[in-house]
Structures are given as structure tokens and as C-alpha cells.
């Protein structure tokens, strides 16, 4: 971090327990203004709790946190004036119409009547909700509810937005639409903290990613930095019998073999040239291969490697073992 970057959110040693269950076990965060920060982790890792604490919904048991320099516990209202939250469960009033929901927000943000109306019209347009504005939210689809939810968060033009699993349960098209909106917000200089279980989402959106597991941050960095933490790309060769595996293992010395699955994992960047030379080598040694899959590293690998969770997918038998190179 250079000093010219303005920190929007700084948290030190956040702790939270419910009874005996430790949910957050000392979290440090530092999020730069205008960036997208993704908090990634499985269910129960503490993502939602982190968002609830940082958005002043609940108090931490220990540690402290500031949003643009305002302490969460001492100046909660100053923090609330700067933030917007879109939760995992949609925070809309389903008895009201879309427009009434937005009007409610405009009134609570104390916008002038005319300014509020303009803002609402803009948001309805931006989020493709103009046609549905007069219908009760209870008739909306999941994607529409989520868009309205985010539109409501934006009425007060917050400088920091918390998005708790913004695309969970959305179909692929609505998910892409939501990603587009999130990128546009960041481009306007809004700081975004988003939580997700989808590694692809973090990879697509985030400037920085932190992995949360059992209430601890186990890694943090740019997606590129994190991918460097694990073995590079590789090709997995599947063999029909032990003999084939043995001869291939002699041919590719840097490879890692899995005798039980009859597979060999060969380091390879997955490019056409290097694939061709790999196939040529197999040809020359007259080794018959039953199957082949190309694997380029993604955040999935990082996460599974770091958490040591057993991977059940047949094409990736190697995550619990030592890196291939």
C-alpha cells in the first residue's frame, strides 16, 4: 500500500463469538477507496458476520474498525451516513411497489422532493425497473428484487457499499447483469466490499481478494498474486492400466503420479505449442493415453489448497498433496 491510497475501511483484530462458537477469530482488513474487495469463503466462514459488524448492524466483541476514519462504535451514525448495505436476504419491503420502496429510501435519506424524484427515475431506468415500478415487489422475480435492493442502497449515494452475496440464487444472466452494475459503481469511485462463495465472481470483479475460513483470513492479495501461491497449469493424463502410467512417469520426470486413480499430472501452461510437444513426447514413447484434461489455475485451486479441503472432483486429484513443482 502506498500512502497516496486513501483507506476506506480499516479493521484490526475483529472478533465475534456466539456463545462458545467463535465466528470471527481476529480479522484485519484494509480496503482502499474506490476498489472492489472480495471476501471469499464457504458458508459459515464468517463473511456475513464481518459485513454485519462493518455495517454497524451488530457490535464486535473485540478489535476496532473505521470507515473513512469514523469509528464504528463511537460514531455509528457518521458511518451509517457513508455506507449502503445490500444483504444476502433481500432488504426490500415486499408489500410496497418498487417506486414506493425507492421513495421510502429517498425520504429516509432526507432528499429534497424534486431531487428524490429525479434520483428515483434515474435508478429505475439504470436498473431496468421502470416498467415494473408500479407493481408490488411480491410479484418481482429474484433478479428484479436484487436489482431493486441495490437501487435502494444507492438512493443515498453511499461512498462504501457492502454487498453480501449479491448474486447468490440468481440465474447466469442476472448474475452477469449484476456484475456489470458492480463494475460501473467501482468505476464511479465507490468502494465495494462484497462477499461471495463463487470464486469466479471474485476473480471477475475484485481488485483484491481475501479468503476467510473458520473466522480467520488465510490469504489476501490480488487474484494474480493468489494464483501464484499454487502450482501452475498442468495437464492430467488418464491411463487405462498401471503399465501406461509407469512408462509415462518415466517420460515426464517433473510429473506427479496418482496410482490409485491411474493419472499423471504434468506441468504445462495449456498453450497449443506446449500441448503439441507433450503429445509428441507421448507418441514417441508409444504410450497410449485414455484421457486428457487441461487445467489452468484459478482461485478454486488457491482456496482448496489453502483450506486443505478434500476435493471430490475426479479431474483434480492433487490438491491435498504437495505442489507438483
Amino acid at each position: 500500500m502506498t500512502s497516496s491510497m486513501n483507506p476506506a475501511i480499516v479493521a484490526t483484530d475483529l472478533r465475534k463469538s456466539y456463545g462458545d462458537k467463535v465466528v470471527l477469530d481476529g480479522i484485519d482488513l484494509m480496503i482502499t477507496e474506490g476498489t472492489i474487495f472480495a471476501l471469499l469463503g464457504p458458508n459459515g466462514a464468517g463473511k456475513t458476520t464481518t459485513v454485519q459488524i462493518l455495517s454497524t448492524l451488530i457490535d464486535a466483541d473485540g478489535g476496532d474498525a473505521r470507515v473513512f476514519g469514523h469509528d464504528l462504535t463511537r460514531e455509528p451514525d457518521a458511518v451509517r451516513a457513508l455506507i449502503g448495505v445490500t444483504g444476502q436476504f433481500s432488504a426490500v419491503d415486499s408489500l410496497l411497489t418498487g417506486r414506493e420502496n425507492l421513495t421510502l429510501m429517498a425520504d429516509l435519506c432526507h432528499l429534497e422532493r424534486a431531487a428524490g424524484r429525479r434520483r428515483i427515475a434515474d435508478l429505475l431506468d439504470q436498473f431496468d425497473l421502470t416498467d415494473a415500478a408500479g407493481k408490488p415487489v411480491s410479484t418481482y422475480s429474484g433478479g428484479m428484487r436484487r436489482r431493486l435492493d441495490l437501487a435502494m442502497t444507492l438512493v443515498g449515494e453511499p461512498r462504501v457499499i457492502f454487498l453480501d452475496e449479491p448474486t447468490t440464487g440468481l440465474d447466469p444472466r442476472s448474475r452477469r447483469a449484476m456484475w456489470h452494475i458492480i463494475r460501473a459503481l467501482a468505476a464511479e469511485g465507490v468502494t465495494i466490499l462484497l462477499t461471495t462463495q463463487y470464486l469466479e465472481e471474485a476473480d471477475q470483479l475484485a481488485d483484491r481478494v481475501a479468503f476467510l475460513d473458520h473466522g480467520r483470513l488465510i490469504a489476501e492479495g490480488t487474484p494474480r498474486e493468489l494464483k501464484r501461491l499454487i502450482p501452475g497449469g498442468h495437464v492430467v493424463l488418464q491411463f487405462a492400466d498401471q503399465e501406461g502410467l509407469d512408462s509415462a512417469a518415466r517420460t515426464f520426470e517433473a510429473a506427479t503420479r496418482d496410482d490409485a486413480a491411474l493419472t499423471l499430472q504434468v506441468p504445462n501452461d495449456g498453450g497449443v505449442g506446449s500441448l503439441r510437444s507433450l503429445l509428441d513426447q507421448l507418441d514417441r514413447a508409444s504410450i497410449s493415453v485414455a484421457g486428457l484434461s487441461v487445467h489452468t489455475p484459478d482461485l478454486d485451486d488457491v482456496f482448496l489448497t489453502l483450506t486443505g479441503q478434500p476435493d471430490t472432483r475426479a479431474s483434480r486429484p492433487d490438491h491435498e498433496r504437495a505442489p507438483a513443482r
Partner: protein
Amino acid sequence: MSTLSLAVRDSSTMLRRNLLHMRRYPSMTFLLIGIPIIILLLFVYVFGGTLGAGLGPSGDRSQYANYVTPGILLITVVSAAQGTAISVAMDMTEGIIARFRTMSIFRPSVLTGHVLGSLVQTMLSLAAVTVVALLVGFRPTANPVEWLAAIGVLAMITFALTWLSVALGLVSDSVETASNLPMPLILLPFLGSGFVPTDSMPTAVRVFADYQPFTPVMETLRGLLLGTGIGANGIITVAWCAVITVGCFLWAKALYNRNRTA
């Protein structure tokens, strides 16, 4: 913006929200008006002849209609309070409450919105029930000032019981609980001077009936509307309403401010 003007502005925004809810879903309102009207009809047309005879030598069904109406009005208030507890509990399960908590607004405005909305709803219910009571033989003797005073008394007890039901709605962990918790309140007009004079009751019941908060309210209403003696009941009514309002407001506020893990 000063705290007071913030409180007024945000509370009126929340009141608008609650009024919209009621306008869009009027079935709850009709249900809540239905209960007191059914009890009124039952007591006037089924029990009224016999109970009226118990009021005194000249007692009859029409006299009983006069006697029972103040109790029915309180049943109306209690019935509406039950609706408030349910709608508060339902509201707390909505994600939008979490949103309100993270906004820079007058924090109790969610609750004041419910209370003011219920106050409007209850006063409308009371007007409807009063019309039915007039149709079945209620003959008040009140002058305009006494009418205003009676409306004031009803507003006070409604305000107090609405804060109680908001707290009950908040303390409930489910909508079912919120629906059941205010149930005992509906018995209080019966265990007081609402349906029969307390001096006809056995001693233990009579002592409870004489000292519970609903009896002075009903006696004050009876005095204002029908010209019977009020005595100290007016002051006792004001005191009870003030105590219940303040106590339940503080209770509800504390419940709303506690950390919720949902």
C-alpha cells in the same frame, strides 16, 4: 437537522409506510374490527336480556347495550393491539429492518411508525364499532366536550397498549408467539367492570377486577358517555396509561436496540 425534527421527519416517513401496508392489505383491519363486533352482538342479543335484568329492577336489553359498550370499545383496542404485535413480529423477519438499522435515521422511527399507524387504525376501528353499537341500542348522553374527552381517553389507552404490543411483537421469536402473547389482554375487560358490575363477583376476583387498569378506563368512559360517576377513575386512568406507555416504550426500545444475530 436537530434530533427532534429528524425524529418527526423519519417517524412520519415510517407512518406513511405503515399506512400503505394497511391500505394495501385491509383484510387484517376487517378481521380486527370483526372480533369486537361479534362479541357486542353476542352480548346484546344473546346474553343481554338476562344480564340487563341483573343491572337493576329496570334493567333490560337496551340498558345492557349502554352498559357493555365501553367494555366492547376496550376489546376493540385490545384486538387492534394484537394485530400490531403480529405486524411488528412479521416486520422484524423482513430484511428491510436490517437495512433501516444501517441507515443514518432516527433509530426508533420504525417503532414509532408502527405505533402511529396502529393508533390511526385503532381509532378508525373504534369509530366503526361505535356506529354498530349505536345501531344495536347504545344511547350515549355525552355533550361534544365529553365526546372529545372520551376520544382522548381511548387514544391514551390505545397509545399505551400499542407500545405494549410493539414490545410483545419484538420479544416474540415467531409470528405465532406474537399472536398469542397479547391474548390475555382480551380477558381483562371481562375480569373487570366491562360486562357485569364488579360487586357481583366473588371477593378475590372483585379485588383483582377493581384494581386492574382496564376497570378505571371503562368507568371513565362510562362516566363520560353515559353520565355515571367518574370519581378518581379519571386520574387513575391517566396514571395507568402514562406508566404503561413509558414502561413499554423503554422496553420496546431496548428490545429493538439489542444485537440481533439473524
